[in-house]
């Protein structure tokens, strides 16, 4: 197997070189999933490092570059969920209870992005991951379902429901501002 771009000679690479290449190639994907989930750069780095170390231990089980991407997304998602579950503090708030931006905050483009990031981070764990995988990674519901071990219909309905909730929350905030 090789995680290396097709223009690089596979035969010339050692396993360590292949692994290093995979880390460089996919570091922002893994880090971003973790970061959007935990909203803490240091913690996201720790989670992402753990994912790559697990990959290093299981390198021989990776069958293709596509499998590698699937494996990384799946393992990162599960690591994030495990982190949530191990953190017993009820710091997670539901979407309905999440603080909306104050009236002083203008919902202009960059601020809307920051607001949306905060809103996504406040979602319950499964919904948060669904939205991250759908919108950060652009994954199709079928791929998400496979990675998280869920029904495709459940993924579709939960993604749709979460988008509608976020949309209505954003609309309310805009109205309040006006």
């Amino acid at each position, binding site marked *: 197997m090789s995680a290396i771009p097709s223009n690089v000679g596979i035969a010339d690479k050692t396993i360590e070189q292949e*692994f*290093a290449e995979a*880390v*460089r190639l996919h*570091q*922002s*994907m893994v*880090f*971003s999933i973790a*970061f*959007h989930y935990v909203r803490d*750069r240091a913690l*996201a*780095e720790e989670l*992402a*490092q753990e994912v*790559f*170390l697990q990959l*290093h*231990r299981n390198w021989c089980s990776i069958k293709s570059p596509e499998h590698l991407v699937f494996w990384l997304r799946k393992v990162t998602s599960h690591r994030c969920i495990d982190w949530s579950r191990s953190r017993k503090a009820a710091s997670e708030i539901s979407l309905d209870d999440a603080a909306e931006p104050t009236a002083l905050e203008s919902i202009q*483009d960059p601020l*809307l*992005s*920051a607001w*949306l*990031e905060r809103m*996504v981070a406040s979602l319950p764990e499964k919904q948060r991951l669904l*939205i*991250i995988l759908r*919108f*950060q990674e*652009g994954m199709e519901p079928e791929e998400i379902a496979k990675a998280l071990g869920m029904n495709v219909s459940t993924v579709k309905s939960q993604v749709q429901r979460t*988008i509608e909730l*976020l*949309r209505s929350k*954003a609309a309310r905030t805009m109205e309040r501002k006006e």
Partner: protein
Amino acid sequence: MDAFEKQLAKALSRKDPPAGFAARVLARAEQQKQPSRWFSWRWLAPVTAALVLMGGVGIYREQERRARGEEVKEQLLLAVQLASSKLYQAQQKVESIGSRRETNVGSNIGSTRN
């Protein structure tokens, strides 16, 4: 994808990890490859010797326990044999006394009739 969803995708765009991330991962992966510190070949001989010794002691104790068991079994069999021979002798005595009494009673009855 509508405008809101596009905005969501933009908000959740990929971010670069902190500088030196890949190097830190590779260093940890390299560490992971090293055999753990508690294992060292120099411990192999004494640990093997200790295991062999413990095994030997175990086998010796087991054999000793079995030999003691056999001894106890033999003593028990001997005791049973002795007890049964004593019982046999006692039974013989009782029977001989019984037959003598019957003979005496028979001769007494005969002399009374006469």
